[in-house]
């Protein structure tokens, strides 16, 4: 297991050090910051989904008292450099690149597309100014769906692309696809849709750009998952070296993938600050956040499954279309991750995969907690559909198909080894915690009384970080850096590029360092959020548990070794005989020899040691993930569907999870709960809806519905014993798993509840009206096929 020296803090639910300031109302989020001379920005936004901009008249706005400037798309083009999105550039996307200006100049491509920015003394006045900017638009036909975008005759959203296909169709094959399908007992075909929904953190995007004309330096107070990636984006846009930009971030009100790099609005605000020589704040309001900040998950899949009569899933052939919206960023890269992950923990022998990515007049497809999650939805939905066709129990079909844990490990047909995967154990744990046979009896009894309960199960694995990859294949994110220093007051300082926005890194990393180094938890300080001070990092991809936990562990050891070398000189003992306990360095077994680490630090800084002694009590540590490992688990939900109203209640939810060694169980459980809550939201409540003209319909919280305390049940979380792979670091990521596996778990449960009606579900969003439609449609279909209905009903009653 994870080998940490003292294990006093690691593994326990240490209370978060962040909480005190949050509970006292002393958190410092971007909108809480006020700078002298600060101005406020608001954006003039397109009411059309697709149109030409014929003229922009800002004269009335500029004359409004309190309005300091109005910058149009053309103005901003003159003061900035056009370039690709920094995250996109870092991840190395392929395919054609759409060309567009920072703010809209000649065209608007979605409702809410920013056309101009008004800078004023207050946000109130800036919005007043926006109402006075007169924009002359010419309507263009909206490309409001993927189907429309695939049509070669649809109006191109980007002139330079010629059509609306940004990720041209490409196909890969793994294993013998043709042979597997030819030899299979049966082929099943499905079309599955995942609906558009979005991140919606409680704090939207925002920043304060503060340009100092004397020094030529720009400071960005940002809400971001990486101060360095934001810095890269801002510097590139302003055409300056990164050293001329400093990004600071404090408390961040959630993100889930939204706040990475710098958005068009934030870049406009940075340019405005430079032009005006004054700080400019922009904080998006909820309508902006819902309408234009970005959305996710709009994907459709045509699936063919090669199956044996006994329920072996032999092969899958999948064709997907992803709607990347207007101003495409990382959406066209998602299919390749889906392709890689589709086999999951199963023995799948062959996979054919093809994808097409389109642009439409909708918000950009952005990263949302487990961007590739649809691979689990597709796979776990297909397994349930196959199970029904074959008369198999959903647990049974999964246990049959799970790859055994062998040494050497079984390989996913797409190439990664299934090292240390505990899928079988997680499914078995669910059956220990949930008495499935008893549930089936209750289900049958309740059906006789006209109540419809259902049980669903789904399983997933996540590369958090995944097993060790070949050398050098990780790119910028293949390594994690940390600087560790013992300060003169005895505080162990950890400088990390991690940018927590709810993950509690200031607590969890301190736990590891405290244990490894030997000081009390309170004697560690985690420094974040200053691009001038911290090394490169990104909080995302569920990486921090392994990568940052690991670099903390190893870095603390390296720092401790340095400190003991210096302490050995002070105590006049051999470094091997020294230990640090509770912040005191002493000869093992001789407490009278103890001196506080602060004393060692003071002595080291005093200059008393000669050049032959390394008295800099600081290390620059890196960690490549070690042996890594998979995270994963299985979830089970019991639901009741009111078939007269379509309302679904989640009666019970159980998660059996394996995220390796736990740093802080309460933090882990919080991450899982939050992910599950988002999964419940996705299935029952949340949809980013557009009409056929591209008008956005979910622009307030009255239409984009988030789950509340009444919608989210108690959750039971079972922690599994992990298969350790690394000598030291077996923490694995847990941030995204809940959101990846909860949607199929719930959809599987709902379909199970509706089994007496013969309902099959090929989609992820099931609001009450849709549930009644599914029941009614099936009844209509059945009216034409009474024999099939009788068969189906007798099978589901079995």
């Amino acid at each position, binding site marked *: 297991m994870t080998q940490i020296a003292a294990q006093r803090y690691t593994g326990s*639910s240490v*209370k*978060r050090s*962040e*909480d*005190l300031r*949050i*509970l*006292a*109302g*002393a*958190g*410092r*989020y971007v*909108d*809480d910051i*006020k700078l002298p001379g600060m101005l406020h920005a608001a954006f003039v936004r397109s009411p059309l989904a697709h149109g030409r901009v014929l003229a922009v008249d800002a004269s009335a706005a500029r004359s409004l008292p309190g309005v300091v400037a109005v910058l149009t798309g053309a103005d901003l083009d003159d003061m900035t450099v056009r370039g690709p999105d920094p995250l996109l550039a870092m991840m190395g996307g392929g395919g054609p690149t759409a060309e567009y200006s920072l703010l809209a100049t000649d065209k608007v491509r979605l409702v809410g597309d920013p056309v101009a920015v008004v800078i004023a003394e207050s946000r*109130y006045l800036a919005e007043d100014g926006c109402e006075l900017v007169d924009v002359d638009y010419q309507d263009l036909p909206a490309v409001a769906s993927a189907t429309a975008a695939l049509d070669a005759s649809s109006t191109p959203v980007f002139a330079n692309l010629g059509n609306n296909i940004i990720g041209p169709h490409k196909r890969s094959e793994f294993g013998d696809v043709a042979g597997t399908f030819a030899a299979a007992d049966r082929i099943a075909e499905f079309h599955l849709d995942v609906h558009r929904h979005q991140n*919606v*953190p*409680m*704090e939207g995007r925002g920043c304060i750009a503060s340009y100092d004309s004397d020094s030529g330096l720009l400071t960005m107070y940002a809400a971001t998952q990486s101060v360095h990636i934001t810095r890269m984006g801002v510097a590139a846009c302003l055409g300056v070296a990164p050293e001329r930009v400093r990004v600071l971030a404090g*408390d*961040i*009100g*959630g993100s*889930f993938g939204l706040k990475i790099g710098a958005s068009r609005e934030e870049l406009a605000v940075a340019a405005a600050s430079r032009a005006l020589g004054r700080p400019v704040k922009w904080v998006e*309001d*909820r309508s902006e956040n819902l309408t234009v900040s970005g959305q996710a998950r709009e994907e459709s899949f045509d699936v063919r499954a090669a199956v044996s009569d006994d329920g072996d899933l032999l092969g899958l052939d999948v064709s997907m279309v992803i709607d990347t919206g207007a101003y495409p960023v990382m959406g066209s890269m998602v299919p390749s991750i889906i392709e890689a992950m589709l086999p999951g923990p199963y023995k799948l022998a062959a996979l054919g995969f093809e994808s097409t990515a389109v642009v439409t007049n909708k918000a950009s497809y952005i990263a949302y907690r487990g961007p590739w999650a649809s691979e689990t939805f597709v796979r776990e939905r297909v397994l349930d559909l196959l199970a029904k066709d074959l008369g198999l129990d959903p647990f049974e079909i999964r246990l049959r198909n799970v790859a055994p844990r062998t040494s050497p490990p079984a390989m996913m047909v797409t190439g990664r080894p299934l090292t240390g995967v505990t899928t079988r154990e997680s499914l078995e744990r669910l059956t220990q915690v949930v008495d499935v046979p008893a549930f089936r009896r209750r289900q049958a009894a309740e059906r006789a009384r006209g109540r419809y309960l259902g049980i669903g199960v789904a399983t997933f694995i996540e590369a958090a970080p995944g097993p060790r990859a070949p050398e050098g294949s990780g790119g910028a994110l293949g390594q994690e850096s940390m600087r560790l220093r013992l300060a003169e007051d005895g505080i162990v300082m950890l400088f990390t590029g991690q940018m927590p*926005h*709810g*993950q*509690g890194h200031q607590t969890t990393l301190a736990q590891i360092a405290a244990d490894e180094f030997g000081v009390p938890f309170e004697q560690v300080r985690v420094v974040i959020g200053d691009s001038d001070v911290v090394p490169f990092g990104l909080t995302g991809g569920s990486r921090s548990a392994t990568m940052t936990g690991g670099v903390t562990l190893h870095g603390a050891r390296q720092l401790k070794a340095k400190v003991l070398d210096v302490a050995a000189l002070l105590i006049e003992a051999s470094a091997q005989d020294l230990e640090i306990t509770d912040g005191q360095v002493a000869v093992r077994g001789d407490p009278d020899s103890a001196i506080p680490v602060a004393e060692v630090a003071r002595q080291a800084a005093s200059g008393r040691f000669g050049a032959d002694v390394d008295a800099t009590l600081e290390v620059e540590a890196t960690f490549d993930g070690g042996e890594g490992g998979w995270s994963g688990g299985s979830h089970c939900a019991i639901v009741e569907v009111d078939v007269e109203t379509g309302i679904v209640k989640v009666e019970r939810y159980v998660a059996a999870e394996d995220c390796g060694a736990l740093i802080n169980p*309460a*933090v882990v*459980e*919080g*991450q899982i*709960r*939050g992910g*599950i*809550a*988002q999964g419940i939201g996705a299935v029952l409540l949340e949809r980013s809806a557009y009409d056929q003209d591209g008008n956005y319909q979910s622009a*307030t*919280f*009255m239409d984009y519905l*988030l*789950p*509340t*305390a*009444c*919608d*989210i049940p*108690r*959750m*039971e*979380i079972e922690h599994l014993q992990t298969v350790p792979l690394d000598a030291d670091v077996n923490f694995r990521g847990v941030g995204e798993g809940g959101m990846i596996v909860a949607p199929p778990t719930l959809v599987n449960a709902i379909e199970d509840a509706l089994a007496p009606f013969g309902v099959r579900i090929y989609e992820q969003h099931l609001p009450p009206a849709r549930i009644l439609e599914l029941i009614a449609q099936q009844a209509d279909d059945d009216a034409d096929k009474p024999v099939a209905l009788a068969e189906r009903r007798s099978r589901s009653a079995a």
Partner: protein
Amino acid sequence: MTEITVNVNGAPRTASVEARRTLADFLRDDLDLTGTHVGCEHGVCGACTVIVDGRPVRSCLMLAVQAAGHDVTTIEGLAPDGVLGPLQQAMRDSHSFQCGFCTPGFVMQATAFLGAHPDAGEQEIREALSGNICRCTKPTWGATYDSDRGSALHRLQRQAL
């Protein structure tokens, strides 16, 4: 512009405001009490909840001028010497929040509700908090029921709020 005096966290606070300024913006920008957060500005998310004359109120749906002469309590007023009250301590003990943006609103709503209904059961509490939205975790208070830490709520109920 009107000059208004509002009794905030026990002290009279005066500022000159436009009629259209919301109570939320007045607290945050005129009084520098930034603990109250703005999450939606249309009264749904509850992040801006404060207590006015003993009642929970969405400060984004009240004009600052309407608060003139009234008593307003914000999150800053619950721990004036930096010492957390029992509700706040219970929330910390139960790891009830993550990013913290929704938290002040939850604390104020829960403070007002539990003050008036100290014997409320689980379902009543869920309903009382269902007007506050949390995106990071199972909405805050519910977390206390999922573990042995459920005692946090019971301890709170035994203490007079």
